[in-house]
């Protein structure tokens, strides 16, 4: 059986940044397993610009951002295999994978980095009634068809869901000659970034209907049209608000699901809010030596933050291989979000093991204006930061300092909450 110190599952932005950071930390024996025909993951189909403002201080397109990392991987001669699907990972860190050249094969790893990313929520997850004609795509599938394969999915388009991929595709399809009639969003606010609403919808006069959803799909062989209706505050369609649209294409941009079948099967404990693994401050799961980063851990808005998080996972995995599991004092502080904060990553912190500063990322569950982020060490408030606006579509972060945590040896719980003025 082949043996590697670190095996990385997924060669997208998270896997690439983790591999580079592990090498920078001195690890030589690294293998990236990628199921697609090239490295770079979803960035390859995200041909729009806006990537890298934080990392490189310039606006890159997805493929350009990916190239910055793949070039480094090539330069470092980090091993990777393409067209390879991982089937199973055992708790003993034996990775079972398959591809056309080698068939089914096993690899023994000392540490594993989970970097599989997300897949899109599908129509099945939404329970939209009606026939199942051709012409219904997830937004990402349409993006791949247009940007990589060179096919147009259709001519008259309705988009359900206002996630960023849906907004980006509204513009892309319009520029390629399609008529995007409407974007419908079941929530009273958009899940996408403000700049995408302005630059992808407003620029092209595409209406965004908030608190609306698709209640009917028409057409047997090919989609012929859909019916939209307004929804009440519980998300139920309101009778009498139905509007019919003729269209040959319906794109769904209704959220992402971290792809954690492999993680779950090997015994990694999941957070039901993020559908990603529960991790400590090293981004290590409950299975020793198994780390997680990027969208498989929790869905990010900006790839820059994926790269940053993944680099930390890579470095920590590398340290784990060198030094084994370090549990100074065995002390674990629980981190939790309450009062509007839906989750935090990480979920626990060992103050002795943590770096000088620890980034804690979280999302809020609603749109909050003129509020504060409160951070509590047990019951004592240690941070009270004003935020003009917070929205579920924008990831938030705070930093914890090791020095301060070490000054409070009695803390067993850190709470982050949204507080009214």
């Amino acid at each position: 059986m082949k043996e590697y110190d670190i095996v990385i599952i997924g060669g997208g932005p998270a896997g690439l940044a983790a591999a580079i950071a592990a090498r920078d930390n001195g690890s030589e024996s690294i293998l990236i397993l990628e199921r697609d025909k090239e490295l770079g993951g979803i960035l390859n189909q995200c041909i729009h610009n806006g990537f890298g403002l934080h990392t490189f201080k310039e606006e890159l397109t997805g493929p350009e951002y990916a190239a910055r990392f793949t070039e480094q991987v090539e330069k470092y001669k980090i091993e990777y295999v393409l067209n390879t699907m991982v089937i199973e990972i055992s708790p003993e860190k034996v990775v079972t994978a398959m591809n056309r050249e080698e068939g089914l094969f096993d690899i023994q790893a000392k540490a594993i980095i989970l970097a599989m990313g997300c897949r899109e929520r599908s129509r099945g997850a939404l329970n939209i009634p009606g026939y199942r004609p051709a012409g219904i795509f997830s937004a990402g599938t349409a993006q791949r068809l247009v940007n990589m394969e060179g096919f147009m999915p259709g001519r008259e388009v309705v988009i359900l869901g206002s996630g960023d991929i849906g907004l980006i595709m509204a513009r892309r399809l319009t520029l390629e000659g399609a008529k995007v009639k409407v974007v419908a969003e079941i929530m009273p606010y958009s899940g996408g970034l403000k700049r995408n609403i302005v630059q992808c919808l407003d620029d092209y006069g595409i209406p965004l209907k908030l608190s609306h959803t698709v209640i009917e799909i028409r057409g047997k062989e090919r989609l012929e049209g859909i019916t939209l209706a307004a929804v009440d505050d519980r998300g139920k369609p309101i009778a009498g608000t139905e509007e019919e649209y003729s269209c040959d294409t319906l794109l769904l941009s209704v959220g992402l699901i971290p792809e954690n079948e492999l993680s779950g099967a090997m015994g990694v404990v999941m957070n039901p809010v993020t559908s990603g693994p529960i991790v400590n401050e090293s981004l290590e799961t409950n299975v020793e030596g198994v780390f997680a980063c990027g969208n498989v851990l929790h869905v990010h808005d900006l790839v820059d933050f994926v790269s940053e998080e993944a680099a930390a996972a890579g470095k920590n995995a590398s340290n784990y291989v060198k030094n084994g599991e370090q549990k100074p004092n065995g002390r674990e502080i629980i981190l939790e979000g309450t009062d509007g904060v839906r989750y935090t990553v990480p979920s626990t912190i060992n103050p002795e093991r943590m770096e000088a500063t620890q980034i804690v990322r979280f999302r809020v569950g609603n749109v909050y204006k003129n509020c504060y982020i409160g951070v509590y060490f047990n019951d004592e408030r240690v941070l009270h930061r004003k935020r003009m606006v917070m929205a579920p579509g924008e990831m938030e972060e705070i930093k914890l300092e090791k020095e301060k945590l070490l000054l409070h040896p009695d803390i067993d719980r850190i709470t982050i909450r949204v507080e009214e003025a």
Partner: protein
Amino acid sequence: MEKRELICISCPMGCPLTVELEGQEIVNITGYTCKRGEVYGRKEVTNPTRIVTSTVKVEGGKSDMVSVKTREDIPKDKISECVKALKGITVKAPVRIGDVILSNVAGTGVDIVATKEV
């Protein structure tokens, strides 16, 4: 007097801006809550620009399409002309990041460059 309604994109706040124009002249901007809003409103009304991204066909490469972009932003009202100019273009592999695919697109003085290696 002309009134233009905009949403500032400088941050998630998304302030609704109202820009009042007398001909080409901005006489008043309201609705912003920080300086970036005023700057955005001024630029968006006087000289709105965008980076445009698209794809063109490739022959003999590892994929059939290569992604491209305008090297710099171009005036917003040139976007459609820019995309039309790319229709029907086929390039031959190998293509490298930064290779000029079409120079001076739609008379903007800006080149279309490749953003992927194919």
